[in-house]
């Protein structure tokens, strides 16, 4: 491998990281409220609303059942409308975010379900409003689980971002497909795969470290 190829890989790392981080952030901007709404409107939730829950639940299930590689192609018109083109890093962020939202929504819902019902009851007994319960109780008490969920999301989106390489999405996946697959340059493919593995490990390590620090439940 020559220096130009190494520079290309370095650029790829940057593109992958920006795609993954930006779409995770956007994913949470929509996915967190979605997950909270799912939890709140559930029949055992703090403001049960069967219709709302059924609609959101259905949308999330649809979103989660479309394979990412299909979604990627399916929403190309929408991506064009939003970004102006259907290839490159910026364009890949659109399908990544859309794939992430239902996934994140479900993760958030599951995390909130772990919060002790008694604590929610306590807050209600003190006259807390639904919003106060969400912000001051649910998100605080579930923060470790939410963070662990975010680590998993980051990993999943990293995997998706590599898939976007098949349609010229940019980043490490793109390089692996173009050089490793179309041009049989196995060494480049192996290097990109190793880098993706290292990134995944780093995300997980960072997530675990922070969540351990945040968790005050086991400090005996």
């Amino acid at each position, binding site marked *: 491998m020559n220096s130009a190829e190494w520079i290309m890989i370095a650029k790829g790392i940057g593109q992958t990281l920006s795609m993954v981080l930006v779409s995770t952030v956007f994913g949470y901007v929509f996915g967190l409220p979605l997950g909270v709404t799912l939890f709140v409107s559930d029949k055992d939730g703090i403001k049960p609303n069967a219709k709302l829950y059924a609609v959101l639940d259905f949308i999330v299930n649809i979103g989660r059942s479309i394979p990412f590689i299909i979604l990627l192609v399916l929403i190309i018109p929408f991506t064009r409308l939003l970004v102006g083109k259907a290839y490159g890093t910026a364009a890949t962020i659109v399908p990544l975010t859309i794939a992430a939202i239902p996934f994140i929504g479900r993760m958030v819902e599951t995390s909130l379900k772990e919060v002790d019902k008694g*604590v929610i*009851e306590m807050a*209600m*007994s003190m*006259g807390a409003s639904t919003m106060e319960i969400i912000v001051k109780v649910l998100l605080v008490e579930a*923060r*470790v689980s939410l963070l662990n969920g975010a680590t998993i999301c980051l990993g999943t989106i990293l995997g998706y971002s590599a898939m976007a390489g098949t349609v010229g999405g940019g980043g490490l996946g793109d390089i692996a497909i173009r050089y490793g697959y179309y041009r049989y340059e196995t060494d480049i493919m192996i290097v990109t795969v190793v880098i993706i593995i290292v990134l995944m490990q780093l995300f997980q390590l960072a997530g675990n470290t922070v969540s351990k620090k945040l968790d*005050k439940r086991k400090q005996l």
Partner: protein
Amino acid sequence: MSNIIELKNISKTFVSKNGEGNVEALNDVSFSVGTGEIYGIIGLSGAGKSTLVRCINLLEKPDNGKVIVDNKSLLELKESDLRMVRKEIGMIFQGFNLLMQKTVLDNVCFPMELNGVAKSVARKKALEYLEVVGLSEKAKAYPAMLSGGQKQRVAIARALASAPKILLCDEATSALDPETTKSILSLIKEINEKYQITVVVITHEMAVIQEICNRCAVLENGRLVEEDTVEELFRHPKTAAAKRLIYNATSQVKIMDGGKIVRIAFEESETSEPVIANLILEFKTAVNILESNISSIQGKSRGQMLIELPNDEKTADKMIAYLKKMKSITVEEVKNNE
């Protein structure tokens, strides 16, 4: 004394989906609690106690009836007004329900945070309340580092922080050992006296009622079957449910078939007379003392004794009549199946 809590004809049925598993949790329950009182609700598990106490702050909405707290009919209030009333009703739970990710100090600050109290003011007040419950040195600790008794103390400090008029205790000592239970109960009593907070205690343990309550209701299968002062209830339990709770609390004796059995209740200080000895001398017949004990009801000693009378029914009846003439004691016959 005016009533701060009035529940009228409260009914609540939990409906299951197919309608077969409907549970009638409460059936036409009415009671009232006077301002400053410590009121107990006792019953076995499944009697509907927890549902009943949750009807007071409408965490559980009754199907029928009226809930009047501090002269407000809660079922007629808008949600925002109901939340304001709830701020005046503190509650502590069997499972403590502390925020595990927040420090003890922040836990106590929580209700003040909800009430919009400035953080610096809240912290200062929270430290005062922690002082009251004897835990000021744990302010920076997290709940996971505390024992059960300490957790309940934090919960009490937190309940106090909203300056409530009423404190609801839902099996607050049921997860604690007897020693810790005692100290928590005396803390609740202290708070009742110091801050003039009306207290409602839910429990399945007669000892808890005896320790701190003024009046008490017995709940059985969703119905309020008996209500009285604790002293009267101990002296003269009328219903089978009340008797069961009182005897269970004190007596381990299994009552066998045989002679009639009477229960004698007495105040320790009033019994200078050797009642049993006199009884035996009078009738020249032995009686069998099955069980005898002294329990403390709000600091005063109350004793009870179970005696088995001779098989001969005539003598037994005469003995009962003889005992009933004595003023210092209360006598009643105990049926074998109770």
